[in-house]
């Protein structure tokens, strides 16, 4: 067991949740998502994000549309689908539960 690995494992578990959370505010394209995740220190390498986005899209939680950009070629804007919203709210609940559970364990109550 090394600490970096444990940290990475923890992050992995909630990465999906984070992506859905970011997209729940407004549709974004990949670079914006990456920017937010990087600011929050949630990912190390960007390459990790794309497989995750593709999978969430395939599972129907995300959809995307092409939007023209002023700076270059069209960009893929991702947004939450209805199923995604539902999925997110379930994740919210389970996150809150986790926070409570950890709090309980830490304070011993």
């Amino acid at each position, binding site marked *: 067991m090394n600490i970096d690995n444990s940290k990475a494992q923890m992050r992995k578990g909630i990465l999906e949740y984070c992506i859905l959370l970011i997209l729940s505010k407004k549709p974004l394209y990949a670079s914006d998502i990456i920017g937010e995740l990087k600011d929050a220190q949630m990912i190390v390498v*960007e390459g990790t994000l794309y497989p995750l986005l593709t999978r969430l899209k*395939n599972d129907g939680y995300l959809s995307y549309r092409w939007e023209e950009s002023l700076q270059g070629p069209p960009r*893929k804007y991702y947004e939450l689908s209805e199923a995604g919203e539902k999925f997110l709210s379930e994740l919210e609940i389970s996150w809150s539960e986790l926070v409570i559970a950890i709090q309980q364990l830490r304070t011993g109550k």
Partner: protein
Amino acid sequence: MKKTLTINLSGSVFHIDDDAYERLYTYLNKITRHFGSDQDAKEIVEDIEARISEIFAEKIKNGVEVINISHVEEVIVIMGTPEAISNEEEEKASPTGKKYYRMGGRRLYRDPEDKILGGVCSGLGSYFSIDPVIIRIFFVLLFFAGGSSFLAYLILWIVVPKANSTAQRLEMKGEEVNIDSISKSIKEEMQDVKENFRNYRTSPTYAHGRNGINEVGNTLVQVLKILGTILLVIIGIPFLIVGAVALIVLFALLFASSHIFGALPFVHGFNFMDFLYTPGSTLSWITIGLALVIGIPLVLLILAGIKMIFRIKTNNHIMGSVFGGLFLIGIFILLFSGGTTLGEFSKQTTVTNHDKITTSADTIFLCAKKGQGELDLESIVDPDLNFNHFKVGNLDGKDILIGIPELRIERADDSEIELITNKTSRGMNIPSARTNAENIQFNYLRKDSLISIPTSYQLPKVWRNQRANLKIKIPVGKTIYLDSSLKSILTDVKNTTDMYDEDMVNKYWTMKQEGLALVNRAIPNVKPLKK
């Protein structure tokens, strides 16, 4: 000054240095291989390319004119190497990501969680749905029955990837591979093809030319993939079988003694290599060299076969370099030891011994020197292996070379009988050639008028094209008797009746000016001389 290229990365045009292009190309290739070849993977790679393109565009905006290698390196750090990506990603392990392993069915992996050595047996067990213990017993039994399983184990250990991630473990234990599951997976793929067509017609991308072409391409790719899967197995099996058989034959020829493999019809036990080299020196080197130079392509053939049959995706560059390196080392060893061995044949010399005999007898009796308490060499000769001046025999389980001498009979210029023994050999230099020649044990015996000549002699352990022959000069007027035991060594004996050498035995001959002339006399009972 550097050469630059113009590339189109995800719809944007960039100027890029030659070396930077190479680096980027390799990176994208690795990424593509990492994610596999299905449609999702394609999309992921496209996204990654789009992002790289964006990062480059940023650079251009900040005044960079040409993308150079440091820009590419920077991008790779940002995006992550395939290894870093696979460390971070978990999506394949998620139960919803079933597409990833449903497409592949069950795959062969080594199981790191249930291993004795490399986890090969447990992986095979998972693949074939057999208890790994049975496979282990099987491997151990085969090991004692000839050792081939050891080689097989090593090859599998090298070529089969370890099931590291959860997804790989799922693939390892995945759907059983049998006729049902194969037909199921083909049906599923056909379904995908149909869906793709439908999607293509209804999707909004239908109007979007570029994507539309992609869709058609994908459909074609999927049809080809089904055919490819079947074809790969059909090609892979002969690869595997041919490679394995050839490898076993090679090792048998190089290393094994004649007794294990002598029974096999296609492998003759005789190992000529043994006789070419001074024991313990070049032999081991040349064996290693040959094993490498012939063995490595065969191992690669086997690996290719296994990869095709079990559809293993590996991008193990280290293995390629190791095999390449070993192959080159093998070639060097062969060149070096081959040169040394050729050198051992560079000089030839002949040692001659003259022996004049005086006898009052009118008739000389010539017969073979045989059965004098020594070994009868010719009786152990292997009839299948007959070379020009020697034969191969088997003595106490070891191959030996048996030289066959030549016996010539000529007219003497004077009145004395002369026996001339010639022993010839090659060697690194004249003295060593002479030593080799002197080591030939070829000696006749004489008592009064009876001469016994060996019809064979054992060659020393190291073959240097040794030869021995005996020339007997008979004065005109003397008569000789040729015993039938000399039939095999009489060579080019001139006679007035123009008889073939092998017909000349059992007869008396008198030396005339123009050669031996047949004389009719009662056949005597000649007893060979004993030491």
